């Protein structure tokens, strides 16, 4: 190490090894402090003021925004919606993902084709997905979903235009778009289960279901927890779907959408910042659970 450092010093015309290191991290650190660290700190201050984009200069109001948030029935509604939506989508996508991962794990021909096709919705732009599904959810009898419901002798329904059905409809679309991600992660987990377990069970005369219930599922528990928590984190951040596909009477209002509306429709930056912190506590709690369960090294994903 010593000789290398000396060489370096000689050849790099005066810049020490330390200085070079700072050169390498400089662009990223400047970007990080200006656009990430500073906004986080600034957000604390903004949330304690009555800052509005237009109008008089902001004044300090203490925790008033936070107090208001806890008495805001619309925020309460948005929070309840987000919780229900997140539970539906995180559970639904993990379950559907598990089913298809288990099917793909069975050494079948064309598994690559199946995997690719099932993953296509994941990479499809959400704007296009929502526009396609809005059309499929058409309240007219000719809409795809009403046609399917008609096959079972029910409907026609109003889907996203019905305040009771809007949120589940939104969740169904989100599960359809998202389960492929869960599937790929779970499939990787399945491939990691050593074959000897199954061989031993086969010798003992275990059925496919016995093996699935007593070997696969217990060993898969950490992976399932991982996809479920990631689904929870992403669910709590859901913005584009409810922004683009709004049910009546705030039936699909999520916390992210409500924050956006406060900030960019009503210009209430202070209140929006306070709401952000409240929602973030939930997301961070989920992240902490995730970190605890998997360690910081391999458990992080924001995709």
């Amino acid at each position: 190490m010593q000789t290398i450092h000396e060489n370096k010093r000689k050849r790099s015309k005066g810049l020490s090894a330390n200085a070079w290191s700072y050169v390498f991290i400089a662009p990223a650190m400047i970007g990080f402090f200006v656009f990430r660290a500073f906004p986080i700190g600034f957000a604390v201050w903004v949330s304690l003021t009555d800052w509005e984009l237009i109008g008089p200069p902001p004044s300090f109001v203490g925790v008033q925004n936070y107090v208001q948030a806890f008495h805001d029935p619309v925020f309460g509604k948005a929070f309840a919606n987000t919780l229900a939506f997140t539970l539906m989508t995180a559970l639904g996508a993990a379950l559907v993902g598990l089913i298809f991962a288990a099917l793909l794990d069975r050494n079948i021909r064309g598994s690559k084709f199946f995997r690719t096709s099932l993953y296509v919705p994941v990479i499809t732009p959400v704007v296009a997905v929502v526009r396609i599904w809005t059309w499929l959810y058409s309240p007219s009898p000719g809409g795809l979903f009403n046609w399917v419901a008609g096959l079972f002798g029910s409907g026609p329904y109003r889907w996203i235009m019905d305040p009771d059905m809007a949120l589940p409809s939104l969740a169904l679309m989100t599960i359809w778009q998202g389960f492929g991600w869960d599937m790929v992660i779970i499939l990787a987990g399945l491939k990691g289960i050593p074959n000897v377990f199954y061989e031993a069970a086969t010798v003992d005369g275990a059925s496919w279901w016995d093996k699935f219930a007593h070997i696969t599922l217990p060993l898969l528990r950490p992976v399932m927890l991982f996809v479920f928590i990631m689904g929870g984190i992403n669910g709590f951040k859901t913005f584009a779907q409810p922004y683009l596909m709004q049910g009546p009477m705030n039936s699909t209002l999520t916390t992210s959408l409500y924050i956006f509306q406060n900030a960019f429709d009503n210009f209430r930056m202070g209140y929006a910042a306070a709401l952000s912190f409240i929602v973030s506590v939930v997301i961070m709690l989920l992240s902490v659970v995730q970190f605890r369960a998997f360690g910081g090294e391999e458990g992080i994903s924001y995709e």
Partner: protein
Amino acid sequence: MSSGVRTRANGGKVLVYILLIIGVIISLFPFYVSLVHALQPDYYIESSGAPDLWPLEFRFENFAIAWEKGNFSRAMLNTVFIAAATTAVKILGSCMAGYAFAKRDFKGKNVIFAILMLTIMIPDEVTMVPTYMLMLKLGWVNTYLPLIVPAVGDVFSIFLFKQFMESVPNSLIDAARIDGCNEWQLFWKIVLPTAKPAIATMAILGFQASYNDFMGPLIYLNDERLFTVQLQLKAFDRFYNSHFDQVLGSAANLIACVPVIVVFVVFQKYFVESVSLSGMKG
């Protein structure tokens, strides 16, 4: 390859195929009915019975009309520019920093890295409002800068590159130093080329993320000439007056989907790698 031990008798396989085919139909059917809808002629009126599985006529020119109407030439160029610039900035910033954190010793390294890792848990929601106010102060609203520049300090990318760089052998770097490379040349000639696989993965994922990004452009871009594909697609609703406008709307949806699906199918292995990178050890 694992043997057939996991599977039961062949009778079960038929069921597996049937279930997988049902899954594929569910995944792809919305795209198929959109395609049929997008090809319908201008006298088409939406049926009130079963959805149409075949168009009355194949009007491929609908795609040209929708392309023109939605100003997609411009939007595609804008989007590709944003995606390329964002990805380049992100890779450069995080590759340099990732190298320093993985392979160099310097004062404060562990403290700085710990601070980075701490903020990874703080969701973007917290910074949305103050970042917008910052961009407003900088005069960057209604430009591409808010979408591009912050990528230089993307913590998650720094983390990924650090992980990757740790697998680069020290002997390679030491040998280059002995051969007389200065630190700058060393990075560009030795370190960066070894990171090619990681860079390729980041580039493909970065393209997909930028192309599909909706919230960023929605917040920062007001001028229609600056619109990305997603914003133009969202704005397409304003044309809805007749049945045929809805047909064109379906064509616009597919126009917006095609580039990213093609990139995905062609570069699939990078997506699979990224899932294992970001997910967990297999």
